[in-house]
């Protein structure tokens, strides 16, 4: 056993140095040069340079004048992120979904899209499906006194169509664009 002590200790320290220090430093070095924006959290800044969020992290939006984000089990907490972990058979899930549906339901638009009634895995899902955005569009258009067609165009411009995944709209990006188009009355 004693013959193994020196290699064990030296190699764990050497591997710590190589994989625990040099490797992350090299990745950081390259990333900060090649992709500085993403490496630092894809931050959104306003005209004054104030950070208003990250493009990738959902924010809470309240009121009729905003597109609301995917519901969050952790109330949009970023430290720490969390999910509901409700089982499909848990009565609490059905109760929550049905009571939110009762609040959001608009007869003319049919059943509420499931994305607006269910919490995401991260609690920070920045996206919604186009259908879940469309469901909110008449409400936002009325509150901002914008023609729905103009808003529809904005939504289409903000929709991403990845080749290998479902189409999504970034809600924060959409709301930022909306603020430029027709600022909500304060």
């Amino acid at each position, binding site marked *: 056993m004693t013959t193994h002590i020196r290699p*064990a200790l030296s190699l764990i320290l050497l591997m710590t140095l190589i994989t625990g220090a040099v490797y992350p430093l090299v990745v950081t070095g390259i990333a900060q040069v090649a992709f500085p924006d993403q490496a630092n959290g894809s931050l959104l800044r306003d005209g004054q340079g104030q950070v208003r969020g990250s493009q990738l992290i959902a924010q809470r939006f309240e009121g009729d004048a905003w597109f609301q984000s995917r519901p969050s089990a952790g109330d949009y907490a970023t430290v720490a992120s969390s999910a509901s972990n409700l089982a499909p058979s848990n009565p609490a899930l059905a109760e929550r979904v049905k009571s939110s549906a009762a609040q959001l339901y608009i007869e003319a638009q049919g059943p509420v899209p499931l994305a607006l009634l269910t919490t995401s895995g991260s609690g920070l899902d920045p996206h919604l499906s186009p259908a879940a955005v469309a469901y909110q569009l008449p409400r936002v258009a009325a509150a901002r006194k914008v023609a729905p067609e103009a808003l529809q165009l904005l939504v289409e411009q903000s929709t991403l169509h990845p080749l290998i995944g479902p189409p999504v709209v970034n809600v924060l990006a959409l709301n930022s664009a909306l603020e430029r188009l027709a600022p909500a009355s304060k």
Partner: protein
Amino acid sequence: MHSYDYVLLLAFFALVLLPAPLLGRFYFKVMEGQRTWLSTLLGPLERGCYRLAGVDANKEQSWQQYTLALLAFNLAGFVLVFTVLQLQGYLPLNPQHLAGQEWSLAFNTAVSFVTNTNWQSYSGEASVSYLSQMLGLTVQNFVSAATGLAVLVALCRGIARRSAKTLGNFWVDMTRATLYGLLPLCLVLALLLVWQGVPQTFADYVHALTLQGADQTIPLGPAASQIAIKQLGTNGGGFFGVNSAHPFENPTAWSNLFEVASIILIPVALVFTFGHYVKDMRQSRAIIAGMLALFLIGGGTALWSEHQANPALSSPLVEQSAPLEGKESRFGTTASVLWTVTTTAASNGSVNNMHDSLNPLSGMVALVNMMVGEVIFGGVGAGLYGMLLNVLIAVFLAGLMIGRTPEYLGKKLQAREVQLLVATLLVMPVGVLVLGALAASLPGPAAAISNPGAHGFSQLLYAYTSASANNGSAFAGLGANTTFHNVMIGLGMLIGRFGYILPVLALAGSLALKKSAPVGQNSFPTHGPLFVTLLVVTILLVGGLTFLPALALGPVTEYLSLGL
């Protein structure tokens, strides 16, 4: 299923299957010390490591010495991680001033990362400093995967060598696996991930003022470098609490494809490495076929199950579609299921959706993938040595049926080998059923359950299965951060890791000693469709018969009660 779902599945299989033969050959050359295109760059570093550690790279070890070296190295790793986690409050690179972890949590976390499990009773952004992530967790992500690869090549040599007393040198195998086998791929993946939006910085968390004027803290850190190895090394421990569901850990559909393919990239390639060792690629193709068959059976079942609407939510006000609770919009159903099946087939354990909220049968596929011992591709090294045990058991069963001494690739399986094989068959039942039953029957530990009814039992069953299979994923509603669960799940992980490694190395030593029996006309061929079928049936029967009652109490009961 939409057109993009099919494109995703196609891209996934192309990414993992097409490079496998070449990558498998690369691993063979690396582990046998042959020159590769990386030798110029990494050769001096490798030799420098041996010089500083006092290792003679040409001196081979018996299976006993190999095992002792492995244990010494893993013990040293455990002590280091345990210490760093407890003392992180006094150490640098801790911008959020996080305190040290409580002892049972630190024990659980250290065991978890040393055993390549990455069960997480903690949330990364709230309880692990940058320093602990890097020096503690990232390092074990590398060397625990390298340890698995070392054990695999020791077994390969045991099968391939004739009348040999040695299996190679653990120090050399571990070093080569880390430097050549993991580091370069991780560098590439880490940069791909940053490009897609994963942070990689040492700056503090950022304070933001949201569009509606609320305060928001944006957690950052050297995430991409750790996420790359947690995927490629079949580790699975997230940088952020919700793992690859977090938009910083897995920002786009593309990052998702890279990450999910990375889970089994190396395990698939290693099957071809085995073929090079035994100089018979037909054996590799047969094993790949068996693994793929199991993967597709589970994957197909889970995809079907998860596309069913949850009857409990039926209401005229609610859209009736595939469940979205616990899933991210950018992934949707198919990418979530693909991940769930892949991460449990391999012993990865990272998640991009919350398994607790999966439909009962999808959750059961995840459970079964782990219960069969993580052999459907499985962990780096660990998956294939686990699968080879099943191959030997299938050969033994075939031998019983035709009444001949069983042999595999010219090696006779005798009493000692069969005893060792049977010992490994006990690992999963002991870890899952004994520890799990203890947790389920004591009132204190059972209080960790967060969902009512049959699903609550599934949560405990999943936790102890995940630990014993060294997977690390969870039905995460379980409040597992208690002294009891931290210690018992830690124990389950140790049993699951070393309960395989020790018998596998003993088996390798015993096989290496044997002379080669000539492969005659009456030998049972181990490469045709007949053998693949026998192998798949063996795996399902051994796993199925052991765990069927437990599955009936958990996911099956939940499925029936939902009326799906």
